[in-house]
């Protein structure tokens, strides 16, 4: 029987994330994928701004910390500098779906051969729970205290649906990490997104529906339930694009 170890691609630093936050699981899945592909020595992480700003403390690979929203542009530079390196960004919803929309759309349009891990927990966690581009309609946050009113502040951004219309995007999938079955699917998707890069297949992005118990004002268990009852119905899971999948849409 296989033993359970911490992946080599994670450092020993204690995670700073809140109790019940699913960033820890997602970090682990990324590190497992790096281990399984044997790419730790040639991987370069581009950290973003948000709760995962200190990803460089946790991934045991070379890292650069990018300005808010700019990780795909920084990753473009890193990858173009040496295409033999495996370059990934790890971005939250504020970073990728609000301030960094131009960078992510154009990195996809260029079919930039990078891997993007997009963590969507529908809120700005690091700054204390403000409304995010992905905050659900009616959801209460610090900056939508009466609930997100879509008639005044607009509708949530569905990023993988949007990016699926970009010709350059090679692989787009939305997964969740709220239960064991979903975590296993998330692992498979993340591994696929890294494998694509190793095989020069181009821009791959995995959106991971994640929880924020602290800023949602829920217990960790209730937060995972909320993913199932509210988040997934609005953000349906599944493969949105895979240009190399024979059964897919290309």
């Amino acid at each position, binding site marked *: 029987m296989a033993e359970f170890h911490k992946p080599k691609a994670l450092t020993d630093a204690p995670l700073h994330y809140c109790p019940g936050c699913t960033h820890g699981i997602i970090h682990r899945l990324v590190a497992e994928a790096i281990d399984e592909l044997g790419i730790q*020595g040639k991987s*370069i992480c581009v950290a973003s701004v948000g709760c995962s700003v200190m990803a*460089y403390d946790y991934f045991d690979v070379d890292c650069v*910390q990018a300005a808010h929203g700019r990780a795909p*542009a920084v990753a473009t530079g890193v990858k173009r*500098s040496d295409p033999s390196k495996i370059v990934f960004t790890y971005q939250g919803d504020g970073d990728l779906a609000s301030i960094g929309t*131009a960078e992510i759309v154009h990195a996809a349009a260029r079919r930039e051969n990078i891997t993007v891990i997009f963590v969507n927990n529908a809120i700005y966690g690091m700054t204390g729970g403000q409304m995010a581009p992905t905050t659900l309609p009616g959801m209460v946050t610090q900056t939508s205290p009466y609930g997100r009113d879509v008639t005044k502040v607009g509708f949530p951004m569905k990023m993988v649906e949007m990016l699926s219309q970009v010709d350059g995007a090679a692989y787009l999938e939305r997964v969740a990490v709220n239960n064991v079955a979903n975590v296993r699917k998330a692992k498979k998707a993340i591994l696929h997104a890294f494998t694509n890069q190793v095989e020069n297949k181009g821009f791959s992005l995995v959106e991971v529906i994640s929880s924020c118990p602290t800023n949602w004002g829920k217990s960790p268990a209730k937060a995972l339930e909320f993913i199932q009852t509210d988040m997934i119905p609005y953000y349906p899971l599944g493969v949105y694009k895979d240009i190399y999948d024979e059964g897919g849409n290309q």
Partner: protein
Amino acid sequence: MSEKVLMKGNEAIAEAAIKAGCNFYFGYPITPQTEVAAYMAKRMPKIGGTFLQAESEIAAINMVIGVASTGKRVMTSSSSPGISLKSEGISYLAGCDLPALVVNVQRGGPGLGGIQPSQSDYFQATKGGGHGDYRNIVLAPSSVQEMAALTVKGFNLADKYRMVAMILADGTMGQMMEPVAIDDIEIETGEKPWALTGTECRRPRNIVNSLYLKPDVLEQKNFERFEKYKQIEENEALYESYMMDDADICIVSFGITARIAKNAIATARAKGIKAGLIRPITLWPFPKKPLLEAADKCRAFISVELSMGQLVEDVELATRCKKPVYLCNRTGGMIPSPDEVVAAIEKADKEAK
């Protein structure tokens, strides 16, 4: 010495950058620097380099950050409004101690301004531009030959000190054609043990980062950076001194206006007024020493500039306000004629005793 060819200033920058070992260019279209990008688009594929037109100025400077963090030579170029957009990234380059070359072929501002030559980004270039405590090395070419030479020097200084070097040119310098010789030059990149090259699982990981949440650590980083800046101020200031041996009136001017000033000096001297010129070639570090020395010999200074007195402030600081500093300027894309400068020299000569 290689053969001289006729080139635009913008093209000279591009060719010199390639000669300096820069294989990566990221930019976004804006007048009047477009020839840099056009030249790179043609040349880079032929030398196995990368030319990429980014989706925005912001993306372009962040692509620069990406390449710079891997330790390779990289540049971007733009004109004034585009440099404002790049300022966030320039601040990050400073905070991450990354070398890169940024070219600003200035046009009139503020706002969308105009597309004619200007020097009104002087404050932005020399005093900051982006947020935080930092400096850029700022080089001000005054001929197409210098556009090339200072591009090479900029890359070398950027690598030597791990910081941004900026070429602060203007629309005239970018667009005008002059004979230029771009020799094969010595590339001084130095070792870059900090670069992100993948650990190969043989060394501890490298981290390129500007985030320091502990204030004492951030303070220390800033102290260290300013020690470096102090060394640069002591060692790297460059200027040209022109007819200063007996000068009563000292013009201070850089770039295209310094050339107009030289014409005016000849006319003034024919009229019996001993005028001279100190032309800063580095705007930061500013050549304070020759200006302070001139303050003991000259009766007055005149800043000839394409901005609203931005250069005056640095002349006053460098000369410790020992002598009056007059302003002779045009702005918004207008250029002073030699006669306007002569008139300013005559005025200063009459008033300053």
